[in-house]
């Protein structure tokens, strides 16, 4: 039963969707504050390499090492995002190119690869990977076991995070103010909300979550460091923010859909289906384009809930 193709695909959709979910949730926060972050891929890779390094160098119990690795990945991702915030908020730079500069600087052929070389991270597999848990011993329950009770700790954290972020965005005062900053920074500023602080904070928060997403690759999916191991997941996460209409709950659906697409190749090959591996590899990218076209053509962007001031640097009126 639990070995049936559908169950396996659904379970691996959740597994592969988890890093996408973290990175995309980060994107939701960042974009809600009006900052476009195209540096997600770079932030994920920096998070991934830092987590792999930490896993090799932090001692203590297995749980402690995993916990520390994730924290360090968050810190590294946040630090990278700080650079982005500095460019976008303080220097009011072109946010598109700023994000690209972060991805090139930190990305597959950049700093993440440099650190991996200097710290010799790639030489051995990660000693303390994140393993799947058997929650309450229910992991073998038919159908529900693989879907609900047999995931990594980060997957459960991500579920809580989705609930918390929804609550934060739509039910708290700070969330309301955050949305105000993204919709109309002029108004927010006039209300006495610090646009700069909100944008810095949520950009860094987005980077920290992207860092966790990267850590999931190096600690759980690949379990060792390979240059550029996210293979474009950061970009798919950016698209997911749009598919999810800037809402955490819908982002979760999108993340698992793309998780399924990403894992399809591995799953089907393991069952010796005769399908072109190349086509399966290309599927997530082709689907991203198709869904993006559907989303952008059907409705006006505004009705989807795109923050009105997304990508626009805020400048106070000058005297």
């Amino acid at each position, binding site marked *: 039963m639990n070995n049936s193709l559908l169950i396996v695909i659904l379970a691996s959709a959740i597994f592969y969707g988890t890093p996408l979910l973290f990175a995309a949730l980060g994107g939701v926060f960042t974009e809600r504050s009006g900052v476009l972050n195209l540096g997600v891929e770079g932030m994920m890779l920096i998070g991934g390499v830092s987590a792999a390094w930490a896993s090799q160098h932090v001692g203590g119990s297995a749980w402690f090492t995993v916990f520390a690795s994730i924290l360090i990945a968050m810190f590294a991702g946040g630090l990278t995002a700080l*650079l982005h915030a500095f460019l976008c908020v303080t220097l*009011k730079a072109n946010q598109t190119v700023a994000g690209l500069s*972060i*991805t090139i600087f930190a*990305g597959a052929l950049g700093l993440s690869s440099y*650190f991996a070389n200097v710290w010799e991270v790639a030489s051995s597999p990660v000693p303390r990977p994140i393993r799947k848990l058997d929650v309450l011993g229910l992991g073998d329950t038919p159908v529900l076991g693989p879907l609900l009770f047999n995931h990594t700790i980060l997957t459960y954290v991500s579920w809580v995070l989705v609930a918390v972020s929804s609550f934060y965005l739509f039910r708290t005062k700070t969330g309301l103010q955050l949305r105000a900053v993204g919709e109309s920074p002029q108004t927010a500023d006039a209300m006495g909300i610090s646009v700069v602080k909100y944008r810095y904070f949520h950009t860094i928060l987005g980077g920290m979550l992207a860092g966790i997403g990267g850590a999931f690759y190096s600690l759980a999916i690949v379990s060792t460091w390979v240059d550029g191991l996210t293979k474009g997941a950061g970009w798919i996460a950016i698209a997911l923010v749009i598919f999810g209409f800037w809402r955490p709950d819908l982002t979760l659906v999108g993340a698992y859909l793309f998780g399924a697409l990403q894992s399809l190749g591995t799953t089907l090959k393991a069952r010796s289906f005769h399908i072109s591996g*190349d086509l399966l590899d290309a599927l997530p990218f082709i689907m991203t384009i198709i869904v993006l076209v559907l989303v*952008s053509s059907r409705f006006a962007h505004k009705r989807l809930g795109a923050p009105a001031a997304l990508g626009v640097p805020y400048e106070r009126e000058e005297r």
Partner: protein
Amino acid sequence: MKSPVRLERRLEQPKWLNWAIPLISLLAALAVGAIVLLLTGKNPLDVYHRIFERGFLSTRALTGTLRTATPFAFTGLCAAAAFRLGVINIGGEGQLYMGAIGASYAGLVMGDSYPVGIVIIAMVFAGMIFGGMYAGFVGLLRAQFNTNEIITSLMMNYIAGIILNYLIFNSLSYWRDPRSAGFPSGKPLEKRAFWPSYEIAGVGISFGLILATFVAVAVWVLYKRSRFGFEIGIIADSPRAARYIGIRTKTTIVLVTALSGALAGIGGASQVGDFTHNLDAKGLQLNNFGYTGIVVAALARLNPLGAIVVAILLGGLTNAGYSLQGPDFPSGLVGTLQGLILFTAVAGEILMKYRVKRNTAAKKAMVAS
């Protein structure tokens, strides 16, 4: 007002800033790079000295530098041509692959029977058409459905990479050398399809780089001296205004995106014709030509002629990276420096818009009032 400096909006932008800002950006990138090097226990002066030596200081180094600069020039022109319209085409990488596929096809088909000149022209055009159509699709989606071209063009890069792998590694396509069973590789071109190269004072210059220079002049003329270029400027400044005065915005977006892809496509053709002489699926994907093109365009401030100069500069950096690679000079360093250059180039734009002033004047004014 505690900050020691303040920004004052520039009312006009003096011309000298056009070269001063890229220069400052470059120096700032090297300075930040030095911090990264120091933190990881390397001597920055030593590293930079070796980069300069291996990139520029001998005829052999210069030959390699110009070779590396050739694709960068094309992808730089590709990014600059699209960015000028406000279309962020970051698909130069994939469009270059497609250009290489098209050009190698033309070269393979025509290489043994047509005169040399015709073969080369056919390869250039095949590269342009393949790259242009691949990008034109992105432009069409943007113009017709307002689809975010940044993400679509990037996704197309990954797809193009997969197409390359399919053609050479995972199928028995026309491009694959049937004799290469163990290590699949592209079918070699006939000698006739090799592009010429020239030597000036011992430095080898590829036909592709010379072509890139001519193309850059043509793009410059198109943007600065033609009605089409004028319309592009208006669309970039205000799409709404452009529509009101009757410019066909959608058509222009598709045309410019296709043009931009065609430029990257020539870059792919040049890789095949100038250097590899087959469809080198692996080699094409190793170098991040497309991303570097974005850095080139940004540092050249989207000026096509500047793009050639910057491409040679970055070619030097990258080429030095290739020849120095080893434990003392880990891979990833070149990409890091390139990213930093883009970073500081973006940051440098603030100097274009604002003038940095010390804050003393403001204080006095406040006391006086």
